[in-house]
């Protein structure tokens, strides 16, 4: 949408038009301040865990499993060298036996959320589809963090004023 706006402005005689294509999602994902009625609202960007285990396609699943478990996780995001999400290793994939790579064991093309999605929507989708965790990415697919369903449900509960 911003690209069309930029072209339209140029057609109207504006000579120095710049398109911040990554836009509000990118801004919020970076944790920069915003203004408006929803400031302070919890979103995928604010609830996602940033220090999430990652691995590459060609890594040994056995090595990845040991590293992930040692870090206290039961999931690992498979990324490329640009930190673009390639797949996801949830608990079911991490326990796979044999001499296999992360790339062959992962769930390819997992569902992802954008950073601006409100926690109520996250909770609804994760419950409906029984998703224990979901990566949060930029529009370009770069990993921002991993949403853990328990965290999302706690955040919704806290927003509704329930005891923590």
């Amino acid at each position, binding site marked *: 949408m911003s690209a069309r706006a930029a072209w339209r*402005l140029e057609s109207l005689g504006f000579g120095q038009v710049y398109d911040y294509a990554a836009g509000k999602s990118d801004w919020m994902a970076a944790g920069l301040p915003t203004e408006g009625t929803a400031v302070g609202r919890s979103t995928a960007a604010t609830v996602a865990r940033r220090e999430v285990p990652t691995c590459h396609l060609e890594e040994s699943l056995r090595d990845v499993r040991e590293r992930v478990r040692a870090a206290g996780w039961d999931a690992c995001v498979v990324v490329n060298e640009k930190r673009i999400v390639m797949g996801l290793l949830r608990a079911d994939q991490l326990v796979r036996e044999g001499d296999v790579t992360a790339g062959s064991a992962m769930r390819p093309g997992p569902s992802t959320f954008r950073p601006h999605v409100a926690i109520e929507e996250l909770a609804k989708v994760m419950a409906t589809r029984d998703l224990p965790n979901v990566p949060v990415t930029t529009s370009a697919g770069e990993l921002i963090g991993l949403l853990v369903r328990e965290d999302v449900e706690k955040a919704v509960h806290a927003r509704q004023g329930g005891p923590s």
Partner: protein
Amino acid sequence: MPTEIGREVAQQLVAAGAQLVEVLPEEEFDEQHLPGAIHIPLRKIDPSVRASLAPERPVVVYCWDSA
């Protein structure tokens, strides 16, 4: 031809006086927008936009993302 920029350049341009414009619908702007942004939805960008924006100054436009 409009120039696609990233976050850091956008920040630099705005700090140097560029006009920052969100082109999303009103509700989305009201809920959350970048500091100092003005709201001109895509459908309202017509010749009358000169009343809100100075053509001789740089303009940075944005929406949610490029997807």
